[in-house]
């Protein structure tokens, strides 16, 4: 036997921790007959609830949606206004999320939005999107959205009407006006909408005694305060990553979670392709394993508290050693930095970072994340200013709302006043504070003390249930509004459809409260934007804004503020006390933003719930992430339920062991464990908001106690894979699947990826290959650019009517996504490197799936697409068995049964909905190819490169996916497939894939050829 065991080649890759630890209990696991958890069944699954659904919905909604909006909205494409039945039309709009908007183009089909894409003109998108924007469509058609106003008394929900609401609120506000608004409070989410700000100031002018509060659970106030400390007043800052050669992220995730992340990812990736031998270098020091950290050239896992040590140390090196000028009169700062220098903890990487920062003055940027204290942000601003990066790689503009108090203060003040009975009426514009307010703020209790409460919300959520009135909120795709991008670019949010449930937008609700004549969102937005459009023909300008989706040149004027005297030095000095290692039994609780449900508001969105987390590959859950060492210390493993105690409060969470996390920390993402999210989101995951208290909302000291119980975790990768044998083999294999090299390697031997392959050149063919005249479709994926965000997966799901199957089915390995992003780890458990590999149908020219189908249901067409004939398929699954890439998906059940009329509206009419017992898979978006072909024919021209863009390629923020005609020598895809970095996965088995990958490049310090 021993002679049979192969010898590992090259770098040892592994897919998850079960692998790396070849430990005893692992072997025990390996011997266990079946993996844990698969058998258990969670309370509800998407499928179950689909069955419950039936046609229980107000058909009124379904019919209303076909009405054309009263206001004229302007198609994106340059064609005479009006609408051609059955012709998809694109409209520009924008999605505002917690104060930063992404410009979108929404495809509408007979007045029914069916697909969301990024707006190429919008600076925050450039055509890309993140998964949240893609999935907003499903939220629009969510049958669980509230459909009518409710009157709620003692937990009883009584159906009401807008007439009642208006009658009530008219009376209420009349009284309030008499008292100049005394006792009126408004609680709003963070929003970038100028109209909302306008309405706010009007309200406060009309009712001067009223108070406006703002609350965002995932608040970025630390950055705001940091800027205020550094520059004397709050500043907004945004990045110009395309100009940055060196990027140092201190607990920051600019590629995924910062406002403008989609744009940042694009800029970042452009500089990762080593064009002209240039490539940026990314350092990440972070407590969680973020998307940015996964793409970093150097990553250091440190507890959130200890990140400050690195920041301080870098600053100390630069200011004290390398003679970077300290701002005048900064003695305390000098002392503070000296304390960092004296700190026993010697963080690695600092020397490299300092050297690179100095070498790249004005071409580098240092970043701090929302989880870092204001002092660190202030220090970062100081560094960027001193290095001359400010204004070059990072831009500043005064915060549009300098007066507002911090979210934490605001919500606690509100609760305090309410508790003291000082609040007469409370108007909640969206949000869900009862669920997500800091645990030490008893918001529910406070609400109980407020006589009149009105909650505007998409869903009847936890907060609605505690209020007196609930008013359905209009989705952003069905209401007028406006918003600003991460750089301040102004967009108009135009509705794609009449409100399905006759909801109201916040500005409309405020307008009604104000009762000053202008009540429709349309008029309010036009009134707000009028000054910005300046003189000239308003209608003309207005139409241009609607058409483009943004107002040209409306970005904030960037300025370069000069740092003021660092009064914050003592606060910084205090951070030097941090101890990178937490005490035994206790852990540092790190709160991270969940990439699917955000703060919990998207918990009822099945697409997002089923989108695997890029790093853990877990769906339908928010397990607490711990490093292997910490897990061993706590005596827990993946799937074990633990009780977390922090600030005298408890939460029960399942553990997931993940490499690359600092010892002594536990990462949790709030937003799950909803109690009133809807049929999809209720009871999914664990509610960890109770563990967030006070001002420091992003970290907590906690102790962790195992409960001895277990929880099924549905991961789309790894969790079956529990034996040492398989782990070793995967390590040997993955090097050939994901080829990578350093920039230096590439410059020395551009073809390094090809040399890594078993044998050179084309394999001999038994038969003469088919020649594909005309078009010959192909695709490339640049692994150097891919950051693994998962936008492609959701975009594909939305475009191709891919069903949601639920946690139980995912646990059984039956998820339906046509394109998945495989994730591999390499290196050590403490500092692993992460690889992503988008995997979809390779449209092999010698497709193994085709010959084995007894009924010829899968075949090649004359352009080389591997097509699947759904209504010919009888479901033998032989094709899937014979597919080496395992990209085929089988409909084990009738996954679309029981969809209500509104839910069905989300379907793309160009793509057939597959029934039970049918195999399906990526089609290279053949419907888009046909549409483009028809369009070209109409215009009497041949198809041009770029005419056809599959959903995945379109959504990709980093342009990693390129599609086109391989017969067109000028096409991007042709050039990329001929690129020295290009290689095919499993080419050696003779499948002749049409999908090729570009080997991943990295630029670690030391390969100096990287920086010209």
């Amino acid at each position, binding site marked *: 036997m021993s002679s049979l065991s192969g010898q590992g080649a090259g770098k040892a890759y592994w897919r998850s921790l079960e692998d790396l630890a070849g430990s005893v209990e692992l072997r025990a696991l390996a011997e266990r007959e079946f993996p844990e958890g698969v058998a258990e069944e969670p309370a509800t699954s998407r499928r179950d609830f689909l069955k419950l659904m039936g046609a229980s919905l107000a058909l009124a909604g379904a019919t209303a949606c076909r009405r054309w909006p009263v206001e004229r909205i302007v198609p994106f494409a340059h064609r005479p206004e009006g609408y051609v039945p059955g012709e998809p039309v694109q409209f520009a709009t924008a999605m505002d999320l917690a104060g930063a908007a992404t410009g979108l183009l929404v495809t509408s089909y007979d007045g029914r939005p069916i697909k969301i894409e990024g707006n190429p003109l919008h600076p925050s998108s450039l055509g890309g999107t993140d998964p949240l924007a893609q999935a907003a469509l499903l939220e629009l058609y969510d049958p669980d959205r509230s459909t009518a106003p409710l009157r709620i008394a003692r937990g009883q929900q009584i159906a009401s009407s807008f007439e009642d609401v208006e009658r009530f609120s008219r009376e209420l506000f009349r009284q309030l006006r008499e008292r100049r608004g005394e006792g009126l409070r408004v609680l709003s989410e963070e929003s970038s909408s100028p109209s909302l700000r306008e309405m706010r100031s009007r309200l406060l002018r009309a009712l001067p005694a009223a108070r406006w509060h703002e609350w965002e659970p995932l608040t970025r106030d630390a950055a705001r305060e940091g800027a205020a400390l550094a520059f004397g007043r709050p500043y907004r800052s945004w990045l110009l990553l395309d100009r940055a050669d060196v990027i140092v992220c201190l607990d920051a995730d600019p590629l995924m979670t910062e406002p403008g992340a989609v744009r940042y990812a694009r800029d970042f990736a452009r500089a990762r392709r080593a064009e002209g031998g240039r490539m940026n270098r990314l350092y990440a020091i972070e407590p969680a394993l973020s998307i940015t950290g996964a793409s970093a050239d150097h990553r250091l896992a440190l507890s959130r508290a200890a990140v400050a040590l690195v920041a301080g140390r870098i600053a100390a090196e630069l200011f004290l050693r390398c003679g970077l000028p300290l701002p005048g009169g900064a003695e305390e700062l000098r002392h503070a930095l000296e304390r960092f220098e004296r700190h026993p903890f010697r963080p690695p990487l600092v020397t490299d970072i300092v050297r690179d920062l100095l070498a790249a003055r004005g071409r580098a940027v240092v970043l701090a994340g929302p989880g870092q204290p204001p002092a660190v942000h202030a220090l970062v601003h100081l560094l960027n200013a001193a290095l001359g990066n400010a204004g070059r790689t990072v831009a500043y503009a005064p915060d549009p709302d300098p007066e507002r108090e911090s979210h934490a203060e605001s919500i606690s003040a509100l609760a305090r006043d309410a508790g003291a009975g000082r609040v007469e009426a409370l108007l909640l514009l969206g949000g869900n504070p009862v669920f997500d307010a800091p645990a030490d703020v008893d918001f529910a209790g406070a609400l109980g003390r407020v006589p009149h409460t009105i909650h505007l919300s998409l869903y009847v959520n936890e907060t609605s249930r505690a209020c007196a009135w609930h008013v359905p909120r209009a989705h952003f795709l069905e209401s007028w509004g406006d918003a600003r991008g991460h750089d301040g670019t102004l967009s108009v949010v135009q509705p794609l459809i009449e409100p399905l449930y006759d909801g109201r937008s916040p500005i409309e609700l405020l307008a009604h409260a104000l009762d000053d004549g202008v009540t429709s969102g349309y008029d309010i937005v036009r009134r707000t934007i009028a000054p910005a459009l300046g003189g000239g023909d308003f209608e003309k300008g207005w139409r241009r804004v609607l058409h483009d989706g943004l107002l040209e040149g409306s970005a904030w004027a960037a300025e370069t503020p000069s740092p003021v005297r660092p009064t914050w030095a003592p606060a910084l000095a205090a951070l030097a006390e941090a101890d990178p290692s937490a005490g035994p039994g206790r852990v540092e609780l790190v709160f991270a933003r969940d990439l699917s449900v955000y703060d919990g508001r998207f918990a009822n969105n099945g697409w997002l719930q089923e989108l695997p987390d890029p790093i853990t590959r877990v769906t339908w859950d928010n397990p607490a992430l711990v490093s292997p060492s910490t897990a061993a210390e706590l005596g827990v493993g993946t799937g074990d339920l633990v009780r977390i105690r922090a600030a005298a409060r408890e939460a029960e969470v399942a553990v997931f062991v993940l490499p690359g996390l600092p010892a002594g920390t536990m990462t949790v993402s709030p937003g799950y464990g909803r109690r009133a999210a809807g049929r999809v989101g209720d009871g999914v995951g664990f509610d960890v908001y109770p563990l967030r208290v006070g001002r420091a909302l992003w970290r907590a000291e906690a102790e962790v106690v195992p409960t001895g119980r277990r929880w099924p975790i549905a991961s789309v990768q790894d969790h079956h894979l529990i034996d040492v044998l398989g782990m070793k083999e995967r390590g040997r294999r993955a090097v050939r699947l994901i080829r990578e090299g350093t920039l230096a390697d590439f410059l020395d031997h551009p073809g390094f990826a090809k040399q890594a392959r078993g044998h050179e050149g084309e394999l001999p063919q038994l*038969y*003469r290959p088919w020649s594909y005249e005309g078009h010959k479709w192909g695709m490339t994926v640049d692994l150097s650019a891919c950051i693994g965000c998962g936008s492609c997966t959701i975009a594909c799901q939305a475009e191709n009517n891919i069903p949601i199957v639920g946690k139980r089915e995912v646990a059984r390995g039956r998820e339906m996504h046509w394109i998945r992003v495989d994730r591999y780890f390499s290196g050590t458990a403490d500092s692993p490197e992460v690889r992503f590999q988008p995997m979809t149908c390779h449209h092999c020219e010698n497709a193994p799936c*085709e010959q084995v189908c007894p009924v010829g249901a899968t*075949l*090649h067409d004359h352009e080389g697409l591997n097509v699947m004939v759904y209504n010919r398929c009888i479901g033998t699954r032989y094709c899937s068995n014979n597919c080496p890439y395992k990209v085929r998906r089988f409909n084990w059940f009738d996954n679309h049964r029981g969809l209500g009329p509104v839910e069905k509206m989300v379907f793309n009419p160009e793509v057939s909905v597959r029934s039970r017992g049918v195999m399906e898979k990526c089609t290279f978006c053949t419907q888009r190819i046909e549409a483009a072909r028809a369009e070209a024919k109409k215009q009497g021209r041949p198809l041009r490169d770029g005419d056809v863009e599959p959903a995945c390629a379109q959504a990709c923020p980093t342009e990693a996916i390129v599609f086109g005609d391989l017969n067109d020598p000028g096409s991007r895809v042709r050039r990329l497939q001929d690129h020295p970095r290009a290689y095919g996965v499993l080419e050696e088995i003779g499948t*002749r894939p049409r999908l090729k990958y570009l080997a991943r490049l990295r630029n670690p310090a030391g390969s100096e050829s990287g920086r010209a």
Partner: protein
Amino acid sequence: MSAGASGRRLFGLLAEFRSPEELLQACRQIRDAGYRSWDAHTPFPVHGLEAAMGIRHTVLPWLVLCGGLAGALGGLLLQWWTNALDYPLIVSGKPLWSLPANIPVAFEMTILLSAVTAFFGMFALNRLPRFSHPAFRSARFRRATTDGFFVTIEADDPRFDVEGTEQLLRSLGASAVEWLEDEED
């Protein structure tokens, strides 16, 4: 032709023998006596009986050969016409017509048609099924499928004459001889 006891036409004579060996002997004699339309009945195939009775070889094998050839040809034609001619499709980048992939089906078709021919050919040549036969009227003849060995000589044989033939049979050592009456016509 004289009439049988019940007045029906005489079909022939039925003679029983004690053992296969006696039967073989008798058959040789009857054959040499030049009888044409006569037969022997045994519970199991007795070796040498064909020779003893002078039965010619059956044509069945040739029929089966034709069946087999038809199967092979049909199988190949079916596959060629359906996959390569009538509805050509690009499958796994292979040519429309490549023999190796078509061998199994052609082979099975060959076997199928040969076997069917052999089965039905045999019964057809034996004029079976035939549910009524004069011999079935004889109680004794029932043992033909258990342990009886019989000879029947039919009345329409040119050499048949009631006394002479019965004499012959008795002389050949038949343990019993009886008249078989024909079906009513």
